[in-house]
């Protein structure tokens, strides 16, 4: 068997091992059937060309994670905190702010069909379904602004290799508003297989943060799927430092006219770490603006991959889409592979995309040093300055201040 076949075998064994009888049985079973026919990613597939999954041969796919006994340490960024350890939901959900309700997938009523109706995009998304312990479902009330910032902490920890399915679904009712921090923390050779789905109803607004700050020895493969209805507004910031393996597949669909997307991200891969972001923004309907700014830094033997695709469908007239990815290499052995892709199927669109990979500017460095600032500090200032533009665009002070320090540590 090839390594990919072996890993596929592990996936199926894991999927079978996590089957049990409860309200989510059919969701899991259906996913297992899908997994049987899906190929395991390897470098021959375009979407996995620059990211190998050999790190998983340590055995993450052989063992489901068990419930954690100790509590997590994390910065206080939000007002309402929900901690999910190794994919296990707390026995009791906290009191929620006005305008927001929370349920577990397992206790959701059969009318919450959205959980099972939507299909994951990737093999790991299906594996999330197949091995799901439980998921968190957040719903806003129509025309209500949730005043408190909701901080959902996914804490994944294990001393031995294992797999944890992290699952979050957010449904924004018409005219509602929410600020959500989705925060991944933890350590050890555990694979966080995260699937988050955001459904933005008509005229709703969400400010979303996806923070990935696990320790360097933790693995993360995540899917973020966002569906936007008429006149909804999604502002999503994704910040991450590198680890053994980090892969994010982000898929946004602007399904109805007037939906607007603003996404930004910062990824910093130092030492031996690997970060891969695959983004796909689909303009399905007419008159939707989308704007994406991603900044990447790689140092030492760090490796970053960025693939940003904008897909304008035939009926998406008047689309206004832009994507930029600017990168900075700090050392000779670091590597960043950036590829923007445009697919446009009508001619009434405004589309811009650009990507750059450069080094730290020698003239800027000299300027700082000529004012007495030592070289290491000057480099840190320039690295921070490079990503600051993106961080300063974030709305919430608590997240922004934390992010500036946290990313600054990596520079």
């Amino acid at each position, binding site marked *: 068997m090839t390594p990919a076949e072996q890993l596929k075998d592990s996936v199926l064994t894991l999927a079978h091992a996590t089957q049990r009888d409860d309200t989510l049985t059919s969701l899991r079973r259906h996913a297992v059937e899908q997994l049987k026919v899906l190929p395991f990613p390897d470098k021959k597939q375009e979407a996995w060309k620059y990211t190998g999954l050999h790190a998983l041969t340590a055995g993450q796919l052989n063992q489901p994670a068990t419930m954690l006994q100790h509590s997590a340490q994390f910065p206080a960024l939000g007002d309402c905190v929900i901690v999910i350890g190794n994919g296990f939901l707390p026995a009791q959900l906290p009191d929620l702010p006005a305008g927001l309700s929370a349920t577990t997938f397992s206790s959701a009523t059969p009318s919450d069909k959205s959980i099972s109706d939507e299909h994951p995009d990737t093999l790991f998304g299906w594996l999330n379904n197949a091995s799901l312990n439980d998921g968190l479902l957040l719903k806003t009330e129509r025309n209500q602004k949730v005043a408190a910032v909701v901080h959902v902490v996914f804490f994944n920890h294990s001393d031995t290799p294992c797999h944890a399915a992290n699952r979050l679904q957010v449904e924004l009712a018409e005219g509602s508003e929410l600020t959500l921090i989705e925060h991944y923390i933890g350590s050890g050779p555990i694979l966080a297989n995260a699937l988050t789905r955001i459904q933005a109803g008509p005229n709703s607004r969400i400010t979303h943060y996806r923070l990935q700050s696990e320790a360097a020895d933790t693995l993360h493969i995540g899917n973020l799927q966002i569906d936007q209805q008429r006149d909804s507004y999604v502002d999503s910031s994704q910040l991450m430092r590198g680890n053994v393996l980090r892969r994010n597949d982000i898929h946004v669909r602007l399904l109805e006219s007037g939906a607007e997307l603003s996404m930004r991200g910062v990824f910093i891969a130092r030492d031996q770490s690997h970060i891969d972001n695959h983004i796909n923004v689909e303009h399905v309907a007419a008159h939707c603006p989308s704007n994406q700014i991603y900044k990447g830094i790689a140092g030492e033997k760090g490796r970053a991959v960025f693939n940003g695709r904008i897909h304008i469908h035939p009926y998406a007239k008047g689309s206004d889409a832009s994507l930029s990815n600017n990168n900075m290499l700090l050392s000779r052995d670091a590597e960043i592979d950036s590829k923007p892709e445009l697919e446009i199927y009508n001619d009434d669109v405004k589309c811009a995309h650009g990507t750059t990979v450069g080094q730290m500017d020698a003239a800027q460095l000299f300027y700082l040093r000529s004012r007495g600032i030592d070289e290491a500090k000057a480099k840190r*200032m320039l690295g921070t*300055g490079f990503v600051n533009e993106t961080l300063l665009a974030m709305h919430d002070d608590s997240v922004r201040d934390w992010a500036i320090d946290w990313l600054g540590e990596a520079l």
Partner: protein
Amino acid sequence: MLEVRNLHASVDGKDILKGLTLTVKPGEVHAIMGPNGSGKSTLSNVLAGRPGYQITAGDVLYEGKPLAEMETEERARAGIFLAFQYPVEIPGVSNMEFLKASLEAVRSAQGKEPLDAVTLLRRAREACQHVNLDQQFLKRGVNEGFSGGEKKRNEIMQMMLLEPKLALLDETDSGLDIDALQVVAKGVNALRSPERAIVLVTHYQRLLDYIVPDHVHVLADGKIIKSGGKELALELEQKGYGWLTGEEESA
């Protein structure tokens, strides 16, 4: 304070300075003038330690110590300040954050207490006022989107805060209108003191109407070919550089 002896320097393997000798004492203001390509900017960059500028022969001593052995930042901490001909834009790093880092580094090397945030902000605002720079510039990225004149005034503002012992002004007057020139000159004059030396590198005599030098040197082809008092600048203004470079040929 500064002792340059028979300095030879090259940039990208090309010899630019070919035996330059210059002595600057505390309290003095020197003007170094010369046509384009004479090596004026090379001299200031060599003194500030810009990478790529190689000293190939001769000595530069600053307060008795060989400058070549000091890193760029060490020179700044020892009191050398270069006002750049082309100040660099650094988007994302605010002017205030930059000033804070710079002042902390320079002051701590000089055994001075770091300034508290309130004092730092007050001093920065005063310095801004002194060079007619709106205080909003403190919040903006370093030189980001500044006009040419604003960049030059920002340099002088930094100089006022850092209080260097040896200030090198590399064509700070170039491209300035008369009003801006007067502002810059006012800033420089305010810094004149018996402990401080100032070296003005300039192409135009005009600056010297506002900052009166003690010594004027003419640089041509990498060497100082004539030195004199402030009247030399006026003579140059009337006769042009050809007068001197021609004189050298016929001598």
